[in-house]
């Protein structure tokens, strides 16, 4: 029992991170109709910028204040992500509005390569570390409730908490503020949004900045856990089955989908893994997503697709 709960909790905590990255996908898709394949590259660039800026400023400060160095690192990475958002809007989206979805998808593939390339040119292509003081040791909890208690990885727990706060914050921002309302308006209908005075260009910059923020947080969390290296690109793509499962247009779908995939992965790894061999957690998420698609092509929460004949 304790072990099962442990596995579940582990899954939920990873799932929260998937939710966060999936939210990045969903926001951009809703507001600009673009499936942003470059989300993974954005995570890499954000993590690289964070790692290197804090490393450099730490050296410049003589290693006195890791905290200050990290703050500078975060600000630096934030500026980089803003520059990415601005550049993408100015030189890509603005020219390509109303193009086919497939065209835009290919464009984001291009953006991904450019970001990966430039990121490594500027910041280097070795493995760097991010140290934001995440505790590495596990703790035992709920000893009174369950025999033997439940072992929880503190780092995962803090990461999940951070992701949950950000997801919650973004949701409130989108639902309750007038900027959020403007973003939803653009997501619903470009023409109508413009007619009430909402400028598309500014909105897209904001949305890509939000995606950049999501990428930064994900980059810091994963970067501090496994080091900042090229494979961070693929980590973000593990949120892909999440958006398939949750529906590309649904914020709650991203959240719930992330949790389902997180838990599913962990449970399959622990309970099915021994029978089918290792590595199951990598493809099992896609199997779950595909099964959902068979029954609900629009995803769990996506808007129903109606074909008018």
């Amino acid at each position, binding site marked *: 029992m304790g072990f099962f709960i442990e596995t579940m909790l582990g899954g939920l905590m990873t799932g929260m991170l998937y939710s966060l990255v999936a939210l990045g996908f969903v926001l951009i898709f809703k507001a600009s109709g673009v499936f942003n394949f470059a989300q993974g590259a954005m995570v890499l660039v954000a993590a690289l910028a964070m790692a290197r800026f804090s490393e450099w400023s730490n050296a410049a400060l003589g290693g006195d204040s890791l905290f200050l160095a990290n703050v500078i690192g975060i600000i630096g990475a934030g500026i980089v992500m803003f520059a990415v958002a601005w550049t993408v809007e100015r030189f890509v989206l603005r020219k390509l509005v109303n193009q086919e979805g497939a065209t835009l998808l290919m464009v984001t593939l291009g953006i991904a390569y450019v970001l990966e390339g430039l990121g490594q040119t500027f910041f280097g292509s070795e493995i760097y570390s991010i140290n934001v003081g995440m505790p590495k040791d596990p703790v035992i909890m709920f000893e009174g409730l369950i025999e033997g208690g439940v072992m929880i990885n503190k780092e995962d727990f803090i990461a999940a908490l951070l992701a949950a706060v950000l997801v919650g914050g973004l949701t409130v921002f989108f639902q309750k503020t007038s900027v959020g309302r403007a973003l939803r308006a653009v997501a619903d209908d470009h023409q109508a949004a413009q*007619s009430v005075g909402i400028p598309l260009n500014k909105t897209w910059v904001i949305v890509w900045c939000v995606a950049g923020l999501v990428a930064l947080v994900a980059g810091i969390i994963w970067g501090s856990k496994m080091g900042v290296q090229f494979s961070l690109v693929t980590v973000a793509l593990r949120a892909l089955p999440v958006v398939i499962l949750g529906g590309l247009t649904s914020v709650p779908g991203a959240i719930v989908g992330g949790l389902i995939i997180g838990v599913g992965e962990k449970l399959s790894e622990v309970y099915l893994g021994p029978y089918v061999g290792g590595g199951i957690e990598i493809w099992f998420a896609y199997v779950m997503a595909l099964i959902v698609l068979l029954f609900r092509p629009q995803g769990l929460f996506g808007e129903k697709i109606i074909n008018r004949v």
Partner: protein
Amino acid sequence: MTNASNAAPAAAQGGRKFGDVILDLQNISLRFGGVKALTDISFNIREHEVRAIIGPNGAGKSSMLNVINGVYHPQEGKIMFRGQERKKMEPHMAAKQGIARTFQNIALFKGMSVLDNIMTGRNLRMKCNLFQQALWIGAARNEEIAHREKVEEIVDFLEIQHIRKTAVGALPYGLQKRVDLGRALAMEPEILLLDEPMAGMNVEEKQDMCRFILDISDQFGTTIVLIEHDMGVVMDISDRVVVLDYGKKIGDGTPDEVRNNQDVINAYLGSGH
């Protein structure tokens, strides 16, 4: 036909007084590839009047509206706004100048409630910056509340209190049209462009809509440009009428003048109206 389009006639209804020419369209031509949507069209719009644009299907009425609010940019011609030539502009800039519109094919924000849809019309009047909003602090909250009051006034005015919180996607067509109007009204525009606000409505709904349009004109003095197919409605509520056919202007004047214009009669008989 007299020169009525340039004189400022005393208002027909409710003692409304027309002001100066607010928008003057001069020799507008618009093409889509080989399709000539508008050819050398000139007419003006005076402050506080109800100006109708009529014509058979495909005549270029919606295109004209889209030119006025910056969706389309004509290849030729000038647009004078309050006597000054207007630069090429996008719809959100036109909105800033006080031009609001509704859509022929309803373009509401389907995922949002009626209140939220109308709230988007207040967007330009909100001053709080992104940072204040992100933190949802006092100023942003107070601003939101102030604008909510204005929105509630509009909801009352359009008699849609009972559906305030409903998602617009779930509403019947006639009510959606009303919400569309509400969103435009929330902008407190100087010029309101209405693209077939009564299309697809039953008689009762049409009467309500007519009443709203006249009330807007009387109470707020808003200049209204109206596209409508129902001749009875047009003749009843508009002060001056422009007639388009195949992208050309074939008539311009008071409802009576237009009604007796031979070109207009031919165009309408010819296309089976």
